[in-house]
C-alpha cells in the first residue's frame, strides 16, 4: 500500500487547526492535565533536604512523568474518529479519495506531534525548575543522563501506543466522552508500569529498558493493524454492520 502524503498532510493540517480552535481540548488535555500531573510532585521535590539525595538515587523518580505521553494523546486520539462521526464530517471525508490507512495515519500523526511537544516541554520545564529551585544535591540525584535518555526514548513509544489504543476505541465508540474515558482507562497499565519503575518497585536496568522498548514497538505495530481492521467505514457511516 502506498501512502499519499498530500492527503495525509491535508488531514494533519486540518487537525492542528482544529486543536488550535478547540480551547477546551487544548487547555484540558494539553495544559491542565500535565500540570496537575507534575506540580504536586515538584512542590514535594523543592521541599526535600539534601539528605534525601542518596535515597533518591536508588530509584528513577522522574520516570513517573512518562505518564504524560501515555495519557495526553489518549484524549486526542479517542476523539479522532468518533468526533468526526458525531459532527457529521466523517462521511464527506471518506467520500474523497482518502484511503483508510491514510486517514488513520494522519489522525495518529496529528495526535502524536502535539503530545510529544507537550510531554517534552513539560519535562524540560520540570528539569529547569528542579535545577533552579531544588537543593543541588537533590537535583543531581534526580537529573541523571540515563534517565533523560529513557525519558526521550520512551516518550514517543508510549505516546504511539496510547494513540493506537485511543483510535481503536474511537473507531468502535459512539460517544466522544465515553471514548476519551475508555482511552484513559486503557492507558492506566502503561502509567502503572512507569510509576512502579519510578518508585523502584520494578528495578530499572538497561536490559529491562530494551525489553520494554521492543515490546512497545511490537505493540505499536499490532495496534496499527488492529486499528486498521477495526475501522469499518460501513458501520461508521451507516451505523450498521
Amino acid at each position, binding site marked *: 500500500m502506498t501512502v499519499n502524503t498530500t492527503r495525509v498532510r491535508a488531514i494533519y493540517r486540518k487537525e492542528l487547526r482544529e486543536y488550535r480552535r478547540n480551547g477546551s481540548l487544548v487547555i484540558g488535555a494539553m495544559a491542565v492535565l500535565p500540570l496537575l500531573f507534575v506540580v504536586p510532585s515538584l512542590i514535594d521535590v523543592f521541599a526535600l533536604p539534601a539528605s534525601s539525595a542518596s535515597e533518591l538515587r536508588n530509584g528513577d523518580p522522574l520516570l513517573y512523568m512518562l505518564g504524560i505521553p501515555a495519557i495526553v494523546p489518549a484524549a486526542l486520539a479517542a476523539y479522532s474518529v468518533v468526533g468526526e462521526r458525531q*459532527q457529521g464530517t466523517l462521511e*464527506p*471525508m471518506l467520500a*474523497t*479519495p482518502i484511503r483508510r490507512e491514510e486517514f488513520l495515519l494522519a489522525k495518529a500523526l496529528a495526535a502524536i506531534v502535539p503530545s510529544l511537544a507537550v510531554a517534552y516541554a513539560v519535562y524540560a520545564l520540570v528539569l529547569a525548575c528542579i535545577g533552579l529551585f531544588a537543593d543541588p544535591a537533590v537535583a543531581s540525584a534526580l537529573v541523571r543522563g540515563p534517565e533523560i535518555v529513557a525519558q526521550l526514548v520512551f516518550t514517543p513509544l508510549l505516546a504511539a501506543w496510547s494513540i493506537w489504543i485511543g483510535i481503536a476505541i474511537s473507531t468502535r465508540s459512539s460517544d466522544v466522552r465515553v471514548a476519551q474515558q475508555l482511552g484513559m482507562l486503557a492507558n492506566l497499565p502503561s502509567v502503572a508500569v512507569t510509576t512502579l519503575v519510578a518508585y523502584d518497585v520494578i528495578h530499572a536496568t538497561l536490559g529491562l529498558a530494551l525489553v520494554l522498548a521492543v515490546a512497545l514497538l511490537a505493540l505499536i505495530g499490532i495496534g496499527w493493524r488492529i486499528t486498521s481492521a477495526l475501522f469499518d467505514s*460501513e458501520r461508521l457511516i*451507516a451505523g*450498521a454492520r
Partner: protein
Amino acid sequence: MAAQRAGVGQGGSVDIDEGAPAPNSSLRRSGDSAEVAAGGGIPAIEVSHVTKDFAGRSAVSDVSFSVARGEVFGLLGPNGAGKSTIVRTLGTLLAPTSGSATVAGIPLTRENGVEIRRRISIMPESPGLYLRLSVVENLECFAGLYEVPDPSGRIDRVLRAVNLADRAKDVCGILSKGLRQRVALARALLNEPEVLFLDEPTAGLDPVASRDVHELIGALGRGGVTIFLTTHRLDEAERLCTRVAILNRSLRTVGRPDELREQLFAKTLVARTLIPLATPDAVFAGLPAVTSWRQDRPATYVLAVSESAVAAPAVTRALVAAGADVLSVGESPHSLEDVYLELINDDEEASVR
C-alpha cells in the same frame, strides 16, 4: 448567484469566470455535449440488480437503472426508501450485498474505490463542515484530499460559483444553514466531478436558500455535469430533473416526469357538467371506450378509458345526447406528485394487505 460566467475549459475542467449573468451558464464541463446529455455514449452511472442488506434487512432490493452523461437524474422516495443507501453505495462508501454497477465508467469494486471517488463528489444531506474552521480552511482540507492543482485558485473559483467569495474567511459555525449548504456544494465542486451526488440538497432550507441551490444545480446540469439528486421534494425533482426514478426499497418506476404522468394517468378523462347528471350510469355504462367511472364532485366524473383520444369524443356525444350542459371533457391534469403518491400508496396498501 450573479456576476459569474462559466466557459468551457481545457481537458474536462470547469471554468468559472466573472462578468456575465449566472446561474444558467456559471459552471460547465468541457467534453460534454448535448448529444451525450441526451443519452448517447457510455452511461455515467449503470446500476444492475443492486441489493443492499443491513443485518439481514433489505435497505434496497434489486435496483437497476442507468444515468446518461450530463443528465440530471432524480431519485425520489419517502423517508427510509433507500435513497441515501443508493448514493452511499454508488459513492463506494457502502458495498452492495449483490448486483453490480459502474460509476463514471468504472466498475464499482473495492479496488476501484479510490479512482471512483476521485471522479465523483457527494454532497450528503448534512453539510458536514468543520465548524471551528473558516470556509476557506474547510475547502483547503478537501482540496488537499482531492490533490487539486492550484488549490487557492480553484477554491477562489468555486466560492465565486456559489456566491460565497466574500464569506471565505468566516468561521463555518457562524454561517446560516443555507450558507453552510453552499459551502458544502463548493466543496463538492473542488475536484471538478464527472458525477455529482446531491443527497437532499435543500432539506431544511428556507425557500430563498432552496432557490439558490436550485439555480446552482440547474447551472451545473446545463454545464454538462451529471447530477444524481435524491429528494422527497417533488416540485424540486420536476423542475430540475430530466428523468426521475421512484424508489421505495425497490425501484417502482423510471422515466421523464411527463412520461410517468402519461403512463399512470393518460387513461383517465375528467368530464364536468353544469349540473349533476340524473342517471350517470346510463350515460357512461354503454360506452365501449369507458371501462369504469366514478363521481369526484357533484358534477365532475372521472372516467377510466381504454384510449383517451377515442373516448373523449364518444363521452362528449353521450353527454350531449343525455341533455347535459357540458363544461369540459379532457385528460386529467396530474403532477409528478400524483404519480409519486399513486405508486407509494400502492406500496402502502400492499404492505397492509
